[in-house]
């Protein structure tokens, strides 16, 4: 319980720091801390597989890519007074509030106690059954979507040169 509280607080606090941090590299670092804390939460639910994949995919691959791009552009401090950014800002509030409402609505449905998870939660066979059984179509569609995005990015990069 103590561990849960500590990990949850770290995850939430660093998530807030992601959007308030001045330097983009700082944001990435806070996001890594947040993800590590989240994986601690999964370990507590004995979902070791999910926890390891969270660190492996997000911590080890995607965020390295973020860091790579930020370092390539060599931006030290984000220019928050930027015009395009201030135009998007109200939209951010709208989406944020919608997300918050959605989360409140979902959590109304669950009881206030800590949720019980099945014995096999987050195990390899369990995740495999979900991905390749129940959710096979959304899963495959997502991969096609990602593939399209990759091809699109390559096409755009080629046009430039």
């Amino acid at each position, binding site marked *: 319980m103590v561990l849960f509280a500590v990990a949850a607080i770290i995850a939430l606090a660093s998530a807030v720091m992601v959007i308030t941090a001045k330097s983009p590299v700082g944001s990435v670092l806070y996001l890594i801390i947040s993800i590590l804390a989240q994986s601690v939460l999964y370990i507590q639910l004995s979902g*070791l597989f999910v926890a*390891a*994949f969270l660190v492996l995919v997000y911590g080890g691959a995607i965020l390295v890519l973020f*860091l*790579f791009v930020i*370092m390539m552009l*060599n931006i030290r401090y984000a220019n928050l007074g930027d015009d395009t950014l201030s135009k998007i800002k109200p939209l951010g509030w709208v989406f944020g509030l919608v997300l918050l409402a959605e989360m409140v609505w979902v959590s109304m449905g669950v009881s206030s106690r800590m949720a019980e998870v099945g014995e096999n939660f987050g195990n*390899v066979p369990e995740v495999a059954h979900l991905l390749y059984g129940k959710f096979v179509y959304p899963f495959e569609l997502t991969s096609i979507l990602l593939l399209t995005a990759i091809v699109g990015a390559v096409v755009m990069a080629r046009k430039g040169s």
Partner: protein
Amino acid sequence: MGDLTYIVLIIVKVVVVYMAVITGCAYATWLERKLLGRLQHRVGPTYVGPFGLLQPIADGLKLIFKEDVIPSQAEKFILIIAPVIAFIPGFLAFAVIPIGPPIELFGYTIPLTISDLNIGILFILATTSLGVYGLALGGWSSGSKYSLLGGIRSSAQMISYEVSYGLALVPIVMIAGTLSLNEIVAQQSSVFDWYVFKNPVAFLIFWICAVAETNRLPFDMPEAESELVAGYLTEYSSMRFSMFFVGEYANMITAAAVVATVFFGGWQGPFLPGPLWLVLKVIVFMVFYIWFRATFPRLRYDQLMDLGWKVLFPLALLNVLVTGIILYLF
């Protein structure tokens, strides 16, 4: 077994393994200098102790007493924590590597692994994937162009090779039917059951990627001294430098131990006790690391990317497919 004994046991195991890896790192530098010397018709360190055996201790002492320089352009906090981030993951991965068969002591059966996770392989992949942050952040925070280039190179290289690094292990997991390293070792009880013979392609891809992931020659683009001075290490001195250095060697030892465990039967072997077999196998792969360094010229950056994305990655995918088909048919 009571809770207290359990905790004490874990702490003892952690300390023993940690000390062993640290000592291994120190003597890996000795082995490297000695062997590299011989490969280049030199004698290597000879003056400090017999066969130069005290050289690592002398080097360590020297580094401690060096002045610690922090560049004025640097991001101080990140500059200070970057070596720590580079240092830890190499040691973390050792938590799941089986070191020997369970031993009987005072009536308890003690498994010789710090933690027998049922997702051992994923744990290793997850921890080694975090090591890149130390290098990338160290390069970025130094506030020097050479360091920044080294950091950017290291992050690009790590992402590229990590994909094949993980994919190379997938066929082994498919054949073994488990992600637990203890069970994978148990399945390789005789030499003919070694996974290197069941899937040599996976071993080749994994080993090449392991050399690339640890930034060793011929893949040491992040610190290519002939073009980048010392890459991400340029602005580091004293203990911070040596932490990067020890981190690199810890990563090498970990990679060697993983290869020995997954492909070469881990601690299994006749006559000698288990841990000794693992150490011997690790030493063999450390020698390979050094041999590579003496033999191959450094790759150019585009060659490095070509090899990673156009050769190793498709080959690893193909290997997964072929293994799947064979497993399905037989």
